[in-house]
C-alpha cells in the first residue's frame, strides 16, 4: 500500500480487551531486499512523539531502511510514513561535516579545536565576575537523547549555575507538564497506550492524532473498525481526519476551550454523571469547581464557542456516560489561551468520573516531540532534574549532594527562566551567549522578524549545534556539526512512559560528533569541578551517563533504577517507574487513587491558573492534599488577540502528516517533500468568497507582525478561522528568492500564564487576494 496516499495503511480490526494485531511496516532503499541488509540495529522513532520501536537497516556502512518492531508494546510493528522515508535525510549530501565559525561576516569551515576554543574563550570571559551565570542561555530541543539532556542540565545548573535553560519543548509540551503537576502533584502520564484496547469512548481535545501520532491513530481506527467500537468525540476548529471519523465533532471558535470544558463539566455534574465517592475520597476542590462551571449552561457555551447547544449536550452525554473513557490532549489546547486551565479541565473530567488508573480509563496529556518527556525529566527545560520541586530545600539538597556542589550554585531562587523570557533577556542584552541545540527557532518561534533580529545582533554570541545549516544556523557565530539518530547511542521516552534504547548503526558523516560528545567536550574544556576539586562531569559515554541519571531518578516518579542498557536490549520498551519493586516497569499510574501531591514529594506548590502566581510551601501544606488530586477551576477569558475590523479572521497553525517540525529532515526525504512541498492557507468558503478567493489562488495573509504569501485551499476549517502549517521556512530557497511563507511571521509573542507555552493557535489576521494571483 502507498503510505503517502494512505498514511495509516491497512486496517487490522480488533475488539475490546483483545490484543492489537501485529502489522510490520518496512521500507528499504530502492533495489535492496531483506537478504541484502548487512545488519539490523535497534532504535525507535524520533520524527514524532509516539515512540514507535523500529530497527535500522544497514548496508555498506550506510542507513538503508527501517522496519517496525513487531514485539514492541507501542506500535506492534507499525510505522509512521515519516519514519518509512525520513531516514534518507541522514544520508543527505548537505549534512554539516565540519565546524563553522563566523569570520568577517561569513561562516567558514574550521576544525573542532578552533570552534570550541571560541566558545570556551567567550564563556570564560562571561563567567568571570558576579552574575556571570546570568549571561548564559541554553535553548535545546525535544529531539536529543536522555543522556544528552542530563549532561546539559548538570553542565548548566551545577557547572555554570544558570536558570536560563529551556527547550523548544516549551513550544510543544510545557502545558502537558504544567497540567499534570497542577492536578496530580508531579509530571507523569497516568495512562498507557493499551487503554485504546479497552476503552469504550475516546475524546480528542485539540488533538489531530491522525497527523501527529499516526500509529496511535491506527490503533484507534482498528478499534473503530472492530466489534463494539469506542464512541469518539473531536474538538477542533478544523475538519481533520479525526473530526471526520468522530461521532461528535465540535468545531469550536479558536481560543474558547475553557468555556467549552466548563460547560461540559457543568452537564456532567447536573446530570449526575460523576462518581461522588471517588470525588470525595480522592480529590480537593469540588465545591469551587461546581460553583464556577455552573455559569456555563449549554446556550452560553454555544454562543461563546460558536457551536450548536445540542452538540454540546451530545458531547457531554458521550463523555458522561462512557464506562471506560480515554482522553488525549494536544496543541489545540496547549498552544491556545488559558492553556493550562483548559488542560486541567480534562484532568477534572477524569477525576470527576473516576476514570483514571484502570484499563481503558486513560488520560494522555500528549507530547509534541519524540524526546520531550526526557527534556522535562532531566531538567534540560529548566525544571530541577527528577521532577524535583525548585521551591523545596530538601530536593535542592539532594541534587547538591548527588553532584557534590554548593547548593548556592544550583539555580533555585525562582521558577526557571522559560524560553520566551530567555529570548527577551537576549534581546535586552543581559544574556550574551545563547547556545541552541537541535532546534530551529528562526522558523519555530513566534514573531520571526523579532527572532531573526535577536539572533543577528552581533553582541549576542550564538552557538548552533545541528545536523544541517538551518535558518538559525545561518545566523550563528559558531556552528557545531552534530550526529543524529542512527549515528549515536542513547535512550528516550515517549508519552506513555515507554523507554527505548536507540543504538548507533553507522558513523556520523565527516567530523560530525554526537551532541553528548559536544557537551562532554565543553565541560572538559571549561574544567567544571565539584566541591572536592574532582571533575563535575566525569562521564565519557552514554551508558555512564544513563547510570548517573538512574541515581538522580531514584525514588522520584520517573524512577529508572530498575533499567540497564542490557535490559533495554531485551524486551522492547519498558515503562517507568521501573525499580526493585516494579522490575518490569509500571503500566499505569495512580491505580489506587493516591496522587503525588504530598508536600514533601510534589513537584510544585501550585500556581494560580489566571496569573501564574506561585503559592508558598505553607499555603500548599494548609490545603492538606494527602495524596488527593486537585480539581482546578477557572472562568473563561477571551484570548489576548481577538478579531478586529482590520484583522477579522483568526489564524491557527499546525501540521501536515508528511512533515515534522521545521522540515530539517522530512524536507530532505523525497517522498515526504513531494507529498507536501509548500505552505498554504485553508479558508472556509464563506470567508473566501467575499474576498474573491478561489481554490489555488495566491493570497496574502497579514497580521500586525508580518505578511506571508501562500496558495489558498478552500475548505477544511470552520468559518472565521484560517489555518497555515508551521513547518515551512526558507532553507531550501535561494536567499535572494525567499518570499515570506513561514506561519510564524504572523504569530504573536504571548504565552500561557502557568505553562509559559506560546499562543500559536490564536492570532488575528486578514487575507487578501494577490492581483494576478490566479494561475
Amino acid at each position, binding site marked *: 500500500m502507498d503510505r503517502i496516499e494512505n498514511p495509516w495503511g491497512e486496517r487490522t480490526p480488533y475488539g475490546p480487551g483483545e490484543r492489537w494485531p501485529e502489522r510490520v511496516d518496512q521500507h528499504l532503499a530502492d533495489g535492496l531486499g531483506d537478504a541484502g541488509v548487512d545488519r539490523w540495529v535497534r532504535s525507535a522513532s524520533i520524527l514524532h512523539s509516539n515512540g514507535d520501536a523500529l530497527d535500522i537497516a544497514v548496508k555498506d556502512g550506510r542507513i538503508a531502511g527501517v522496519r517496525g518492531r513487531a514485539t514492541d508494546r507501542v506500535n506492534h510493528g507499525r510505522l509512521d510514513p515519516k519514519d518509512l522515508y525520513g531516514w534518507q535525510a541522514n544520508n543527505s549530501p548537505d549534512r554539516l561535516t565540519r565546524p563553522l565559525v563566523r569570520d568577517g561576516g561569513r561562516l567558514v569551515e574550521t576544525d573542532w579545536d578552533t570552534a570550541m576554543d571560541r566558545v570556551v574563550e567567550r564563556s570564560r570571559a562571561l563567567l568571570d565576575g558576579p*552574575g556571570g551565570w546570568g549571561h548564559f542561555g541554553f535553548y535545546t530541543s525535544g529531539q536529543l537523547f536522555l543522556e544528552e539532556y542530563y549532561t546539559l542540565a548538570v553542565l548548566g545548573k551545577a557547572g555554570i549555575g544558570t536558570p536560563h535553560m529551556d527547550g523548544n519543548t516549551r513550544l510543544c509540551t510545557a502545558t502537558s507538564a504544567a497540567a499534570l503537576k497542577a492536578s496530580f502533584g508531579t509530571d507523569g502520564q497516568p495512562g498507557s497506550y493499551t487503554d485504546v484496547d479497552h476503552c469504550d469512548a475516546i475524546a480528542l481535545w485539540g488533538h489531530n492524532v491522525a497527523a501527529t501520532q499516526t500509529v496511535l491513530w491506527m490503533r484507534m481506527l482498528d478499534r473503530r473498525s472492530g466489534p463494539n467500537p469506542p464512541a469518539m468525540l473531536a474538538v477542533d476548529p478544523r475538519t481533520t481526519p479525526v473530526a471526520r471519523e468522530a461521532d461528535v465533532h465540535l468545531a469550536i471558535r479558536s481560543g474558547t476551550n475553557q468555556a467549552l470544558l466548563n460547560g461540559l463539566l457543568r452537564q456532567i455534574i447536573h446530570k449526575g454523571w460523576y462518581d461522588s465517592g471517588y470525588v470525595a475520597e480522592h480529590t480537593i476542590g469540588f465545591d469551587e469547581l461546581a460553583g464556577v462551571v455552573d455559569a456555563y449552561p449549554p446556550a452560553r457555551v454555544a454562543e461563546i464557542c460558536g457551536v450548536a447547544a445540542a452538540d454540546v449536550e451530545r458531547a457531554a452525554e458521550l463523555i458522561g456516560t462512557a464506562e471506560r473513557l480515554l482522553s488525549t490532549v494536544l496543541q489545540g489546547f496547549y498552544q491556545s489561551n488559558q492553556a493550562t486551565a483548559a488542560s486541567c479541565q480534562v484532568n477534572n473530567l477524569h477525576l470527576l468520573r473516576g476514570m483514571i488508573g484502570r484499563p481503558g480509563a486513560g488520560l494522555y496529556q500528549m507530547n509534541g516531540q519524540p524526546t520531550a518527556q526526557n527534556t522535562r525529566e532531566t531538567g534540560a527545560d529548566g525544571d530541577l532534574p527528577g521532577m524535583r520541586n525548585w521551591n523545596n530545600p530538601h530536593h535542592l539538597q539532594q541534587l547538591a549532594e548527588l553532584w557534590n556542589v554548593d547548593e548556592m550554585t544550583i539555580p533555585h531562587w525562582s521558577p526557571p527562566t522559560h524560553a520566551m523570557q530567555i529570548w527577551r533577556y537576549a534581546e535586552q542584552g543581559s544574556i550574551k551567549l545563547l547556545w541552541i541545540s537541535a532546534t530551529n527557532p528562526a522558523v519555530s518561534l513566534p514573531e520571526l522578524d523579532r527572532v531573526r533580529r535577536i539572533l543577528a545582533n552581533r553582541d549576542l554570541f550564538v552557538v548552533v549545534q545541528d545536523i544541517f545549516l538551518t535558518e538559525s544556523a545561518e545566523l550563528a557565530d559558531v556552528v557545531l556539526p552534530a550526529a543524529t539518530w542512527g549515528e549515536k547511542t542513547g535512550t528516550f521516552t515517549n508519552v506513555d512512559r515507554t523507554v527505548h534504547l536507540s543504538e548507533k548503526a553507522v558513523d556520523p558523516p565527516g567530523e560530525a560528533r554526537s551532541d553528548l560528545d559536544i557537551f562532554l567536550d565543553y565541560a572538559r574544556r571549561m574544567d567544571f569541578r565539584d566541591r572536592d576539586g574532582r571533575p563535575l562531569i566525569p562521564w565519557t559515554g552514554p551508558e555512564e551517563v544513563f547510570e548517573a541519571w538512574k541515581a538522580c531518578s531514584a525514588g522520584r516518579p520517573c524512577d529508572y533504577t530498575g533499567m540497564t542498557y542490557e535490559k533495554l536490549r531485551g524486551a522492547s520498551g519498558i515503562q517507568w517507574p521501573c525499580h526493585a519493586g516494579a522490575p518490569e516497569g509500571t503500566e499505569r499510574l495512580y491505580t489506587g487513587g493516591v496522587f503525588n501531591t504530598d508536600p514533601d514529594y510534589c513537584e510544585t506548590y501550585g500556581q494560580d491558573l489566571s496569573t501564574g502566581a506561585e503559592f508558598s510551601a505553607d499555603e500548599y501544606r494548609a490545603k492538606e492534599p494527602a495524596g488527593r488530586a486537585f480539581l482546578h477551576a477557572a472562568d473563561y477569558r477571551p484570548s489576548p488577540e481577538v478579531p478586529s475590523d482590520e484583522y477579522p479572521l483568526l489564524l491557527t497553525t499546525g501540521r501536515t502528516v508528511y512533515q515534522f517540525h521545521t522540515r530539517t529532515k522530512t524536507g530532505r526525504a523525497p517522498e515526504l517533500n513531494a507529498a507536501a512541498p509548500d505552505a498554504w492557507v485553508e479558508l472556509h468558503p464563506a470567508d473566501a468568497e467575499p474576498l474573491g478567493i478561489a481554490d489555488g489562488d495566491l493570497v496574502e495573509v497579514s497580521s500586525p507582525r508580518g505578511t506571508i504569501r501562500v496558495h489558498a485551499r478552500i475548505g477544511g476549517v470552520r468559518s472565521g478561522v484560517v489555518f497555515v502549517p508551521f513547518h515551512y521556512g526558507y532553507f531550501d530557497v535561494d536567499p535572494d528568492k525567499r518570499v515570506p511563507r513561514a506561519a510564524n511571521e504572523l504569530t504573536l509573542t504571548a504565552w500561557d500564564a502557568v505553562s509559559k507555552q506560546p499562543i500559536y493557535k490564536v492570532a488575528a489576521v486578514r487575507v487578501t487576494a494577490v492581483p494576478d494571483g490566479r494561475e
Partner: protein
Amino acid sequence: MHLAHYLGLLHRAQGNLAEAFRRVGEAHGDEPDVALLCEQQAQVCDRHSERLSPFAERYSEEAPDEPDRLHSELFRGTRTGGIGLLRDLQDLYLMAAECDICWTVVGQAAQGVRDRDLLGVVTTCERETTIQLQWLRTRMKQAAPQALVVAG
C-alpha cells in the same frame, strides 16, 4: 460611624491601582506577560470598585465629615528598563498591599455592623487582591537577579 470613610479609601485605592496597572502595562509592552496581566488585573480592580459602590452609598448617609490625611498617593508614574520594571512592579505591590489591608479593615467593620452582603464582597475581593500580591511577588522574584546582578 466611620465605615464610609474606609469604604471610600478602599474605593479610591482600587481605582488608583487599576489606573497604575494600566499605565505599567502600557509602559512595558515589550514584556508581553506584564502587559497582558496588568490589563487583566486592572479589570479585576474595576470590578472591585463596582462592587464597593453600593456599600459606599449605603453607609455615606451615616458618615460624619471625612478625616484629614485619609488618602495616600503611592504612584508617581512609570520607568523604563530592567530595574525600572522591577520598581514599577514594586509600586504596584505596595498599592495592592494597601488595598489588601483595607479589605481586612473593612471586613472587620462588616462583622461589626453584621452586614453579610458586604462580608461576601470582602471575602471574594480580598482573595483576588491576595492573588495580585502573589503574582507581583512571583514576577519580581524572577526579574530581580537578572536586573540587579547580571544586567550591565
